[in-house]
């Protein structure tokens, strides 16, 4: 395991304002995550695990504290820089797949590459590689509605890894899947961590899913209570 953490979180707090009430989602959280780790964030609803994931991934901002990803303080990036940073460094996997229904699997996977300077042929090559990696090399021309939930989630994983990001963040990726599909998806994420040395951070409620990770962080009331 590398000495320098990929993700260094220091005294991170997030306070939401709901009407006149301040709700603390994260309270002074500090944690290091290293390259190749498969970190599972667990905890009850409202514990702050998704908020932590969103801040690490640069789709939400902290109220206080810092998140350094490969030495870059994400909080210091403006909206435009953050968008570029996400495209280059983060792959997203959502609970409800979030594929674009009018695009084929290959086109969905290609989407993040449209923002890069890669040519069409190179994009196609990368897309084919990513789909092959998740075992859907022959389903590239299928639309999401022609695929099962497990297959759709695997397409989403292919989309997440096609830009070769540092981080792959997954927000309850197995929440909408049956046991077999869930196991397939978790195995792929595990393999990305073990074989490709990707840093995977996953939020889940499922204790079985947690067994696929290399490390579990348990959050309660915005604090890490078990590591």
């Amino acid at each position, binding site marked *: 395991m590398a000495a320098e953490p990929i993700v260094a979180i220091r005294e991170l707090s997030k306070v939401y304002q709901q009407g006149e009430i301040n709700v603390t989602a994260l309270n002074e959280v500090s944690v290091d995550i290293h390259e190749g780790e498969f970190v599972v964030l667990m905890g009850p609803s409202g514990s702050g695990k998704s908020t932590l994931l969103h801040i690490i*991934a640069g*789709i939400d901002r902290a109220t206080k504290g810092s998140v350094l990803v490969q030495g870059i303080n994400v909080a210091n990036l403006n909206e435009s820089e953050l968008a*570029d940073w*996400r*495209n*280059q460094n983060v792959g997203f996997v959502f*609970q409800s797949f*979030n594929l674009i229904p009018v695009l084929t699997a290959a*086109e969905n996977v*290609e989407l993040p590459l449209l923002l890069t300077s890669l040519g069409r042929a190179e994009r196609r090559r990368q897309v084919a590689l990513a789909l092959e990696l998740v075992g859907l090399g022959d389903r590239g021309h299928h639309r999401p509605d022609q695929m099962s939930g497990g297959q759709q989630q695997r397409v989403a994983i292919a989309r997440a890894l096609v830009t070769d990001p540092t981080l792959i963040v997954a927000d309850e990726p197995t929440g909408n899947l049956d046991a077999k599909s869930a196991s397939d998806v978790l195995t792929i994420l595990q393999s990305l961590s073990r074989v490709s040395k990707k840093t995977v951070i996953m939020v889940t409620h499922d204790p079985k899913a947690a067994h696929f990770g290399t490390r579990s962080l348990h959050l309660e009331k915005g604090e890490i209570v078990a590591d």
Partner: protein
Amino acid sequence: MNLPTFVLKNALRNRRRALLTIISVAISCGLLVTLLTLQRELTIPPESEAASLRIIARNKVSLAQPLPAKQLAVIERIPGIVAVTPFTFFGGNFRDETVTSFAQFAVDPKRFQGLLVEGKIVDGSYDAFVADRTSCLVGADTMKRYGLKIGDRMKFTGTFFPVDLDLKILAVFQGTVDDRGVFFHHKLLDELNGDPGTVGTWYMRVESAEVSNEVIARVNAAFENTAAEVRAETERAFQMGFVSMLGNVKMLVMLISGAVVFTLMLVTISTMSMAIRERFRELAVLKALGFQRRELFAFILAESFGLAVVGAVVGIGGAWGLWTHLDLQKLTSGFLLYFEVTPRIMAWGAAVAAVMGLVSAIPPAVETARMSVTEGLKTLD
């Protein structure tokens, strides 16, 4: 896949809605073009180079008041005038028609030839028309419309004058901006009316456009403080006087056009807002993947603009095709003569559609720009 393909697939994801939007924009644009064409038809009299040289003098009291025929001798001597003829509107009904769409004028045939500058005799003979007191000179459009030929007779029932006309067609003209009129001998009208010694108006041609204002002033001055003062004006000003009798048509048409444009805007904004709202989560995902606000705005704008442009092409093209190939003169009994959908009008229609496409993209684009990724994902999760 590339970005234009992505935009196209998004625009056509709900084909029924896209089609209905295109149809609504097409109908609105077609209607707008039709209204602008109607406005042009009603408010802009046909113009020609020769028309700028022509002057009409009428009784200062009103058009209905005749002028003394003896004024001719005075007008003839006014410098700058190269031709003048009495010009009296007969206003009869042809055959059994209750409303006849072409005008009939009593003129002095010899003198009138000097005013028919752009018109050419295409059938019969002008000399024969001059020689026969009961003959008439007819516009080619009227000949064609009623299937008339040289030698046929045209019977008119008087409405302004208590007399009827029975004229023999001896010449046909073509090439003027309005090839519908019928011209006959003033002498015949005088005879039928018991030689009252009056004319409706004086129709003059000046030697050059530069002197027309000067000549108008001279004509007006010549009959100042007489029993029959005149009001001389250019042919165009005279025609515009008739237009003003229709009321403020321009304002009315503009109001209706404004309502059409406003409705069009509401339809497209509403459609685009609905289309974007149902894709909020997808847009949030695109943001998460690294797409910037400007790119999302470009997607929305391209989609909205694309639908508006397709609608405009269908609507404006449809209106052009319809009004160009339909014989409106026949259908409206001559009320609408040209109804020409000019390039300028089509450009107006296209410009309005383009602006609508742009404007309707703004509210959903602003909404999308303000949306954070986490909000977008939560909203529809």
